């Protein structure tokens, strides 16, 4: 019998409306009780005074690169990065090699995860075969094998007719489609946001319209078919507006925002800084403000990292040839906590966007400290100040534009199924 008693922390569990100083008792991998002044003769006691005790954080958008790109990341290293960043559950995207477009690959990932991962791994299947945007992937088979959502992430499902079929077909299985919203034509060959900085650097710019048109299109289609569409990594003001309007119309649309999109702008690309090269691109102050507002008013439902690890040599290249992506799992907590500290949203609301809200989007029974729930818990020290040093990342991906940043807040303990898997 394993027992953990976490004492004296501020328990924030938005799924149950809890926000106060409580003790939390975990027995045999399940949540037993949240209450004041609990005592136990047998439990290991953890002092959480001055810390936040939250349901284990959930990231529904990561790239674990296995199978196929193990030099960038593996399921094992990715899961270690997750728990080091405070995440107990992560969902991984389908753009592996081979692409996760069939049950074999899905099972391979799930089995590898069972064997090697320290966090809970949820699997996202491809919408189309080989991410080709044409034929549907083996969606039914993959559902049976255990996927929780569908996405061609990294690529947009360009053809409307294909998207329509995908929505209808996925709808039968209750699977949300996660859209990487970038019009393939408007974004062709582009490597950063279109604006003053792209003009200054002479780099092909991606217009915000490229995202807004796809979000609008998908919203119309999802509304017409009455299915669930989820917009990945919202980057622009126009996309936030389009989602807000669709929600007002009653469309089943949800959305996520990545920490880099609400923390930094395209000016970070200055001096051809390839660490700031990401898709969709970093935008402007105006877009950052809109995303923050969208998170605050619920237009954007959750925070997701779009953790995209790459090898060093894939970033030390000509800007136009460098890989897109940011290794995001281990910087998400401090960047997100800044939103609460800066008054963008309350602390409960912030934790909601990282726990029960993402759980709801992919339909998993996590992100809560309800009695009987799986004992996934994150303990956060909101005041711990530290300097981001990619050399200390658990992830193989050291590609971050936040290197050297002095940040505040970090996970100090991560508990998965009642077991302490990370402590600092």
């Amino acid at each position, binding site marked *: 019998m394993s027992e953990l008693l976490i004492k004296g922390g501020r328990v924030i569990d938005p799924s149950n409306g809890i926000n106060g100083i409580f003790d939390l008792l975990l027995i045999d991998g399940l949540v037993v009780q949240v209450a004041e002044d609990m005592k136990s003769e047998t439990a290991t006691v953890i002092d959480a005074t001055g810390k936040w005790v939250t349901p284990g954080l959930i990231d529904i958008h990561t790239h674990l690169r296995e199978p196929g790109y193990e030099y960038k990341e593996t399921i094992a290293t990715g899961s270690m990065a997750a728990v080091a960043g405070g995440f107990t559950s992560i969902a991984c995207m389908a753009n592996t090699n081979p692409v996760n477009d069939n049950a074999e690959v899905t099972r391979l990932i799930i089995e590898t995860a069972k064997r090697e991962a320290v966090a809970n791994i949820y699997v996202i299947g491809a919408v189309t075969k080989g991410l080709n945007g044409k034929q549907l992937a083996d969606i039914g088979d993959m559902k049976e094998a255990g996927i929780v959502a569908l996405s061609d992430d990294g690529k947009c499902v360009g053809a409307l007719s294909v998207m329509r079929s995908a929505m209808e077909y996925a709808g039968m299985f209750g699977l949300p489609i996660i859209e990487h919203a970038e019009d393939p034509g408007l974004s062709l060959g582009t490597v950063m946001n279109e604006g*003053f900085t*792209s*003009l200054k650097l*002479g*780099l092909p710019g991606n*217009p915000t319209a490229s995202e807004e048109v796809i979000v609008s299109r998908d919203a119309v289609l999802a509304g017409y078919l009455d299915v669930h569409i989820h917009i990945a990594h919202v980057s622009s003001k126009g996309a936030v507006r389009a989602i807000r309007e669709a929600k007002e119309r009653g469309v089943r649309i949800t959305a996520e925002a990545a920490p880099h999109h609400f923390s930094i702008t395209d000016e970070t690309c200055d001096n*051809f800084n390839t660490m700031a090269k990401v898709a969709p691109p970093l935008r402007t102050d105006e877009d950052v403000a809109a995303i923050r507002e969208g998170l605050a008013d619920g237009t954007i439902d959750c925070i997701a990292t779009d953790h995209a690890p790459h090898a060093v040599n894939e970033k*030390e*290249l*000509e800007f136009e040839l460098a890989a897109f992506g940011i290794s995001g799992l281990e910087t998400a907590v401090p960047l997100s906590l800044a939103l609460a500290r800066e008054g963008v949203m309350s602390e409960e609301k912030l934790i909601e966007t990282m726990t029960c809200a993402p759980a709801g989007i992919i339909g998993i029974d996590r992100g809560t400290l309800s009695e009987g729930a799986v004992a996934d818990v994150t303990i956060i020290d909101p005041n711990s100040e530290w300097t981001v040093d990619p050399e200390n990342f658990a992830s193989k991906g050291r590609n971050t534009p936040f290197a050297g940043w002095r940040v505040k807040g970090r996970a100090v303990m991560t508990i998965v199924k009642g077991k302490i898997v990370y402590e600092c």
Partner: protein
Amino acid sequence: MDLSGHNLSAKRIVSMSELSVADIDLILDTAKAMKGISEREVKKAPTLRGRTVINCFMEPSTRTRTSFEISGKRLSADVINISGSGSSLTKGESIKDMMENLEAMKPDLLVIRSAHSGVPLQVAGWIDCPIVSAGDGRNEHPTQSLLDLMTIKETKGKLSGLNISIIGDILNSRVARSNLTAMKTVGCNVTVCGPATLLPRKIEKFADQVTTCRETAVKDADVIMTLRIQRERIGQAKFPSLREYSKHFGLNLKVMEKARKDVLLLHPGPINRGVEISPEVADGPWSSILEQVTNGVAVRMAILYLMTGGVRQN
């Protein structure tokens, strides 16, 4: 005993935004003296004897490469040319590896041309050897800008206060980008003109005036610079045909009637005769297109002279 009063502040020339007015003056004044060497019977001075200049051209180029090569040789430097298209990645070697290898051969200056924006600046961050950009992607072409300024100053006697109109594919032009920055530094008033599809967003933050009307651009200009139009832009749906481009944006005699009598006409070359400029205009009295090429050698000699002297560190 420092008689010059000003040394070049930059250890690299990768962007016109890094050169001050004093730097530009120094380069142009030095280039003026260098031009004399090209006009001699023995077109050579011993100044850079024992110095090694590597011209690393990762994008095809004939004129710029030749100009840099001649510049180095006229000053007696050992000039080595390396060419190859695309990224060195095609050979499995990264650009960073390649540059570190070149540096290990101890050149005194590395001239870099790339099809990709930002490469000279990135390389300057990786290695200590002085870097001169010979053009990178759509980003910058600083030595072209300097030779343009030299040609303008020779003809007009000054730079500050001149009205300069740049006409053509502003979106894809590194020449336009370098010149917009440099001309602002030296106090010119710059108008850009082209079809809306070839005027980048936010260009108004760089140029003093933006117009799609060729006549407006030509009217009060002291200097007109036309840019090369590339056929591949038709495939990118930027304009319907070369014929239509020429009709609406090309410089012909009729358009030149609207220009000042003493207008100076520049083109970074190579010229598409009959597209962005009609043959009569290219060969007309306004044109200084060949003088630009001559000045290109002088400017590059000046840069080599100003950047490779003295005791090398380490």
